């Protein structure tokens, strides 16, 4: 899901970079207001977790690979704003040091995996109105949130790939950037995430949410909605 350089036109990556930068600026403000200094180590661990999870490439039928992101569980535990910062830092390091994801596409990748995914996951999880007492509901909500947030993020990424032939083609009809249109990109990416990677993201989310519910339930932002940290 890490879009490389040369796949997106400037008409696509510049607005996405702007959208990410604007969200990141708000995220800094929100984290300053809502996150207590006690949670600083968790933020670091969340970013490291996302970094490592994205290294677990899994094969899918059809000859491609993919991976989970960890963005859903981070949004549930630390809140979507903190998740934006944690996942974005992991993506920046992946792009600059490891060449995973392009530099021109960094804004797009951050918007997809560090903004869209955590917020989608958070809102889905909140729909279930989970209470600390109801562990099975928390598990279910965690799975659904991880599963659908990753699948929806994959579809968004595929849409960014798929609009390229419409935006930028040379006069001879050859694409300048990603050559595959929506009818190819969306089914391909949606299917592999629906069948494999979404399930992995769902399971990871479920397991980690369960663990925290057992060990430090007041930490879970999506359940306490930051109250515990506000009151210290």
């Amino acid at each position, binding site marked *: *899901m*890490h*879009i*490389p*350089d*040369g*796949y997106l*036109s400037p008409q696509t990556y510049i607005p996405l970079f702007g959208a990410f930068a604007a969200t990141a600026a708000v995220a800094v403000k929100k*984290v*300053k207001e809502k996150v*207590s*200094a006690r*949670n*600083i*180590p*968790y*933020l*670091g*661990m*969340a*970013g*490291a977790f*996302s970094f*490592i*999870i994205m*290294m*677990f*490439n*899994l*094969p*899918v039928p059809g*000859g*491609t*690979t*993919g*991976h989970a992101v960890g963005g859903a569980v981070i949004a549930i535990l630390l809140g979507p704003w903190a998740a934006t*910062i*944690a996942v974005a*830092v*992991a993506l920046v*390091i*992946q*792009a600059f*040091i*490891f*060449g*995973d994801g392009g*530099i*021109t596409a960094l804004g797009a990748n951050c918007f997809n995996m560090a903004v869209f995914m955590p917020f989608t996951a958070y809102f889905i999880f909140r729909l279930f109105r989970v209470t600390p007492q109801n562990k099975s509901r928390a598990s279910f909500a965690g799975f659904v949130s991880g599963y659908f947030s990753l699948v929806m993020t994959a579809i968004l*990424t*595929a849409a960014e790939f798929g609009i390229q032939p419409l935006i930028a083609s040379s006069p001879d009809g*050859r*694409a*300048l*950037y990603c*050559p*595959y249109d929506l009818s190819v*990109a969306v089914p391909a*990416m949606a299917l592999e995430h629906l069948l494999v990677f979404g399930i992995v993201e769902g399971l990871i989310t479920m397991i980690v949410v369960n663990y925290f519910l057992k060990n430090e339930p007041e930490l879970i932002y999506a359940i306490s909605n930051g109250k515990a940290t506000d009151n*210290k």
Partner: protein
Amino acid sequence: MQLVMAKRLIINKLQKRILIVLLVLCFLTPAGVLLPALFDTGDAWGEWSAQTMNEMVGYVPRGLAKYSDKWKAPVPDYTINSKDHSLVHRSGYYVVSGVLGATVTYVALLLISGFIIKNE
């Protein structure tokens, strides 16, 4: 001031446990090399090199040709030697990359959030 900063970095038992889990996960990352190799799968969708793209559609899109190699990452694709196809070596590079990347991410986030967050 320094004392305040130092105090913030003291981690509790749960956090220590999480760090250990993260380290264990780093040593399991070779699964991310071995599983795709076992099933002989290629790149992730949309992450093909210019050369692979040429094989797939018969040409290299101009934008891809122009931008794909602009940035020279110090450790491209989590490996130190991309010509080394030995699965054992690649797994080793992968673990080192995982530990390195996760550590840099962790430290960067401690610094950034330490800078942002002021309320104790």
